[in-house]
């Protein structure tokens, strides 16, 4: 029976993707990467995103009664393929794009802006897109890279009685646009707070990092902050364990803090820390619904073996925020079948409260925040999680930590204004 259900669902999804739109629906395209060197990270995110949308369809009959139509395009985390995916879906009434890659996001910003399709780059992409007056169609709530860097420094300030004077901090970064994103923030903060910042790049993919860790061993930094992705993360954690660097002083960004990153180092990864922009694990009421409406009928995405992992949770969170934005758009415009422009309005007016998160079965899973024309970046808050190798779980060790938003807004304004000048954009809110 389950086999038949899955087969029928598969045929339905295939027909939905292949056939032109004949019924009212809301198209949520997915630019995923289930293949290539970054597939171990891309698969759980894609599964979480898809499972949440399936849940909304199966349990609620869609958003406001309008069914969700999903489509999947494989980018293999390759920028050119990401742009090709965009070209293939741009004419199919997509409501919102989740590029799932900083490189692809950078390429799509001018294209999607011209086509009037909103982009949600959650915790990645162009940081200065937080300035909604320049980037009308781009949203990066609830947090961006500069928020992440600032949250880590604020956490370290707390750990050091409010002073990082004369401390030595290494930034170990993926030598790419993504990896270099936190450098301006950490440099600015080093000038303000008096710590020494040492930047050490790692060539992609990052399997060989011996020189970097020899340098870290020589420099004897107080802390190492990691901005890594893919194989760079487990390699770095293994190397840190090898040189006996104290794991509690090794903190990764939220893209360096999944089960995939700590698993290969085994016991050596115990105590490693990373940012968390959301909760993780299956201890949330929503998983009862996912079990009932998605897993039991055999409708789960992929192999169904990623449910509750960090990156699955992130995909689920991204889908939840997209659905909430669509609901907001329906309320604002008084129509159920919204278009991309109306979706943009929903995103620009999104309000996430603690009460709403609890109603959705995700209490305290993500921060409460409001999006506005001026601020497309949410609250910027994040927590710190720590890996327990004995139980194989991530444990949250802090509450939500605020970034230095005044500084970030100042930097983002400067960056976005120069973008506006280069691209002949007149800053302002959309009517």
């Amino acid at each position, binding site marked *: *029976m*389950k*086999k038949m259900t*899955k087969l029928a669902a598969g045929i339905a999804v295939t027909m939905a993707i292949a056939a032109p739109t004949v019924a009212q629906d809301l198209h949520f395209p997915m630019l995923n990467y*289930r*293949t*290539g*060197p*970054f*597939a*171990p990270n891309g*698969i759980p995110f894609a599964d979480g995103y898809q499972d949440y949308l399936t849940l909304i369809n199966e349990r609620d009959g869609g958003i406001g009664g309008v069914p969700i139509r999903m489509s999947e395009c494989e980018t293999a985390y390759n920028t050119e393929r990401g742009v090709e995916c965009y070209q293939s879906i741009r004419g199919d009434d997509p409501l919102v794009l989740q590029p799932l890659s900083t490189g692809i996001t950078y390429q799509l910003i001018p294209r999607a802006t011209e086509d009037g399709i909103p982009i949600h780059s959650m915790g990645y992409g162009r940081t200065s897109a937080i300035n909604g007056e320049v980037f009308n169609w781009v949203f990066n709530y609830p947090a961006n890279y500069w928020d992440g860097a600032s949250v880590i420094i604020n956490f370290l300030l707390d750990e050091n009685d409010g002073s990082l004077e004369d401390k030595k901090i290494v930034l170990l970064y993926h*030598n790419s646009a993504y990896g270099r994103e936190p450098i301006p923030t950490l440099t600015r903060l080093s000038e303000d707070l008096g710590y020494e910042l040492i*930047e*050490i*790049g*790692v*060539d992609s*993919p990052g*399997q*060989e990092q*011996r*020189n*970097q*860790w*020899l*340098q870290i*061993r*020589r420099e004897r930094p107080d802390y190492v902050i990691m901005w890594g992705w*893919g*194989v760079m993360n*487990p*390699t770095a954690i*293994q190397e840190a*364990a*090898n*040189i*006996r660097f104290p794991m509690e002083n090794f903190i990764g960004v939220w893209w360096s803090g999944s089960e*995939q*990153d700590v*698993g*290969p180092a*085994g016991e*050596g990864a115990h105590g490693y820390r990373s940012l968390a922009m959301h909760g993780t694990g299956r201890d949330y009421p929503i998983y009862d619904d996912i079990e009932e409406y998605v897993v039991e009928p*055999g409708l789960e995405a*992929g*192999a*169904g*073996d990623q449910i509750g992992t960090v990156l699955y949770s992130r995909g689920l969170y991204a889908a939840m925020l997209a659905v909430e934005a669509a609901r907001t758009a329906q309320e604002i415009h008084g129509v159920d079948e919204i278009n991309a422009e109306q979706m943009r309005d929903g995103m620009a007016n999104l309000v996430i409260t603690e009460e709403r998160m609890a109603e959705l079965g995700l209490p305290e899973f993500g921060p409460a925040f409001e999006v506005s024309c001026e601020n497309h970046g949410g609250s910027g808050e994040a927590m710190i999680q720590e890996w327990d190798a004995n139980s194989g779980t991530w444990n949250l060790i802090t509450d939500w930590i605020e970034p230095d938003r005044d500084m970030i807004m100042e930097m983002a304004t400067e960056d976005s204004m120069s973008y506006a000048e280069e691209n002949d954009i007149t800053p302002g809110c959309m009517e």
Partner: protein
Amino acid sequence: MPDTLLFAMEAALNGLTAGIMYALVALGFVLIFKASGIFNFSQGVMALFAALTLVGFQQGQVPFAHLINAIFGTRVHHFGWNLPTLLAIPATVGVMVVFAWAVERFVLRHLVNQKPIILFMATIGLAYFLEGLGDLMWGAEVKRLDVGIPQGMSGAVDDLTFGLFGYGFYMDTLDLYAMVIAALLVAVLVLFSQYTKEGRALRAVADDHQAALSVGISLRFIWVLTWSIAGIVALVAGIMWGAKSGVQFSLSLIALKALPVLILGGFTSIPGAIVGGLIIGVGEKLFDFFMQPIVGGATENWFAYMLALVFLLFRPQGLFGEKIIERV
């Protein structure tokens, strides 16, 4: 002794061990190129596939579990038992031998007498096929590989260098094991090719296909044998690299590290692969060490290929490769 010199010596020492790891990958390329003139693009993916298979056997994973579950609606993932490493390694070797047979039977046999570029293209196809097969059989998640080789700082090297220089050098115990294993592997390969009937047949085919065929050596058998040995070398490389950073798709990209090694050492020389690996390893570590303060590091990939390019200009056949002269 000045600190900078000590640190440079430490970087060079670690470059030697990194070079051995690169040479392990390059060896597989050399073996197949020597015996059949094929540049095997799939060597890196073979290392990934072998490591995936080893972990799969160790953990008692059901092969093609995702496919089986999707078709039959079941939820099987594991057999419920773990295979000891000492059994899992021979089982993986068996799989690589079967793979070698399949390559000969379904790919190479149909391409006899084709130009090298055709065979090269076939190995590109093979690489893509093997990538997909690996994912389909064992899943795409990152897997921990533990075959009992210790990892972490070598206390012996630390003590020794501290006694000599007053500064303890860092060296990973895993890398020391890799050096010993690579030395053993090369010794076994040399003994095999010099003192066994099959080894001599392999060398005969490498020297002259036509002459080897005329004395009754089966080309098909030699190809299966060569690809089997390359599969075993790929397994060794997969184990050493997989133990460092987990078994995942990126493991296949280690082939990119082998290319400059091959250009330096020559495509037809086993000692060349070792020496080329050592030169690349030491060179990239020292270059990065001295250039890091100026350019911010991350020069290793760039340096290896630049060095290879310089070698191509002055010695295109590599240090130990055969000089190919074609009369036109």
